[in-house]
């Protein structure tokens, strides 16, 4: 997996800080992907999981996604990774309900691989467009 990294320069002044939100029908998947991605980018903490419903049931919740986006939005945008199906519709609904919708973008990428790439690049101060492009490259990579 190709990952462009300048430096792991998290949280320093003047550095671009894109946030990441992980959306899954399962809170376990969302939390797990977040943990894995965070481990690949130590010190980077602008990443939130928005998986499952309020009571822990399987499903997606646009208002939880909205809250997560607002939590990680440092003004440089937010990249969103989704598992499948209605997760994307929920994420799109969440984006539409917020002002600055153009700064929140869903990456058309596999949730795990995309999240890892996004975390490493975001930690390195890459901008939103760059992170989306890199995350989406992971779509075409073979596993074997």
């Amino acid at each position: 997996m190709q990952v462009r990294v300048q430096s792991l320069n998290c949280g320093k002044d003047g550095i671009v800080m894109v946030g990441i939100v992980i959306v899954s029908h399962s809170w376990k998947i969302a939390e797990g992907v977040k943990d894995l991605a965070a481990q690949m980018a130590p010190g980077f903490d602008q990443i939130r999981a928005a998986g499952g419903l309020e009571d822990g049931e399987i499903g997606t919740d646009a208002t939880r996604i909205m809250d997560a986006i607002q939590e990680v939005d440092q003004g440089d945008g937010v990249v969103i990774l989704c598992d499948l199906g209605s997760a994307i519709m929920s994420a799109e609904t969440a984006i539409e309900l917020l002002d600055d919708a153009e700064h929140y973008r869903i990456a058309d990428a596999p949730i795990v691989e995309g999240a890892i790439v996004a975390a490493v690049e975001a930690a390195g101060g890459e901008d939103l467009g760059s992170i989306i492009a890199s995350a989406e490259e992971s779509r075409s990579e073979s596993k074997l």
Partner: protein
Amino acid sequence: MSRVYECLVKISETITENKDFLTDLDREIGDADHGINMTRGFHAVVEKVPSDLEDIGAALKKTGMTLLSTVGGASGPLYGTAYMEAGKVVAGKTTVTAEDIKAMLEAAIAGIQKRGKAVKGEKTMLDALMPALDSYTAAIEGGADMGAALDEACKAANEGVEFTKTIIATKGRASYLGERSIGHQDPGATSATLTLETIRDFVKG
């Protein structure tokens, strides 16, 4: 209890009564949760929308937001958006006219299309709602009142549901089944029709 809240309670009752039916339909061509999800969503609506809220737009917006966060499946963002968009059309109003209902249906359909990117004929809720809107519009243009026009809308919606049995699903979970989806009516089109019928009964009631 405000009129709009009463109507929402009636919708919730209809959905709940049909919970197993909707779930069984969804078991045939989906993931067997439409009835469960919609019931959960509408129970939350009845709980969260203030019962004395007279502003119909505000009540529908609150309904939409509640469905977004409690339904869980695709019907959450789809119905959630539908109710929110319909609510925008009647913001601040405490009564609705026959024209308002047409505008609300148009807005709901546009919202569902924007969200789900389906068109007519893909075996979705739109296959009930779009014919319903056409029949409703024709009826009021022909001088019918709200109740009579809603009768026409419900007739068309039911025909739409029957139509969904004959076609292949090309959207949503059912599309994974391909040809095997033929012969089964769409759960979303069914719940949409049940909703319209409840509204019709309430208006005429």
